[in-house]
């Protein structure tokens, strides 16, 4: 299920595994890195910066920078990041404006995970869309990478 509000993205999925398992996949930095495809330098800690490098095919080495907000075991994991081509603040960016939240709920089938990304209206000068509109080619190659990866 997906919902794109006018300034917020919400995704809800039901995972057929226990909530503790999902929590670990999200908050254990090594495990997170395995599925998200980033190599992280340190554990996730509320209030602390998380750094690393992408391992996503075709973009290996690109920097990862997020600021962990909340870690409420088996309930909520959230972080903030910048909206920019390399994840780092650009001129005029004081605060990482975008908030990503992972909300977990126990359901009979396992775990309901709701992912929300919000804060687009607070961006000083959103770059993703500029990058996106001027890099349709880049997206096509990305889609190819993904297709190859998924079929591997």
């Amino acid at each position, binding site marked *: 299920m997906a919902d794109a509000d*006018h300034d917020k993205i919400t995704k809800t999925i039901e*995972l057929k595994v226990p909530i503790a398992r999902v929590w670990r996949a999200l908050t254990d930095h090594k495990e997170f890195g395995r599925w998200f495809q980033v190599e992280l330098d340190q554990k996730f800690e509320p209030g602390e910066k998380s750094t690393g490098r992408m391992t*996503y095919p075709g973009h290996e080495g690109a920097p*990862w920078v997020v600021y962990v907000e909340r870690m409420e075991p088996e309930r909520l994991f959230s972080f903030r990041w910048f909206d920019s081509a390399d994840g780092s603040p650009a001129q005029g960016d004081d605060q990482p404006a975008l908030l990503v939240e992972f909300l977990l709920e126990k359901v009979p089938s396992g775990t309901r995970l709701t992912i929300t990304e919000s804060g687009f209206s607070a961006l000083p000068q959103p770059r993703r869309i500029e990058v996106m509109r001027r890099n349709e080619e880049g997206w096509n190659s990305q889609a190819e990478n993904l297709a190859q990866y998924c079929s591997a």
Partner: protein
Amino acid sequence: MKRAGIVRPKTLPNIVQHKDQRPAPVMAAVFAALGDDTRLVIISKLQDGADHSISKLTEGLSLTRQGVSRHLRVLEEARLVRRHRVGRETRYHLEVEALERARHYLAHVSAQWDDAIERLTKHLEG
């Protein structure tokens, strides 16, 4: 395209000028402008592509002309709406480009998350 599965190209090409040489609308302003139910209603009224007067836009809204006028100004600043005069009257129409850019942006972000979710699901459920 970065962010571990949510990836953006590292190099940015030169800025593309809007076709009539105005700077492109600031997207954050667009999202902020869209973050209001009344403005969303006004936009939906304008989505027929026609020009509308303030009176027309005020119909059905529990707001005064001035209230609607204020909202229209926010929409104009975000380049979502433009005005022009027809005789003595001011008419408003939707600027599709800004809206499409906002939607395109969100569709892009949405697709990135879909990809990440697929990887998480595969990782957990096999």
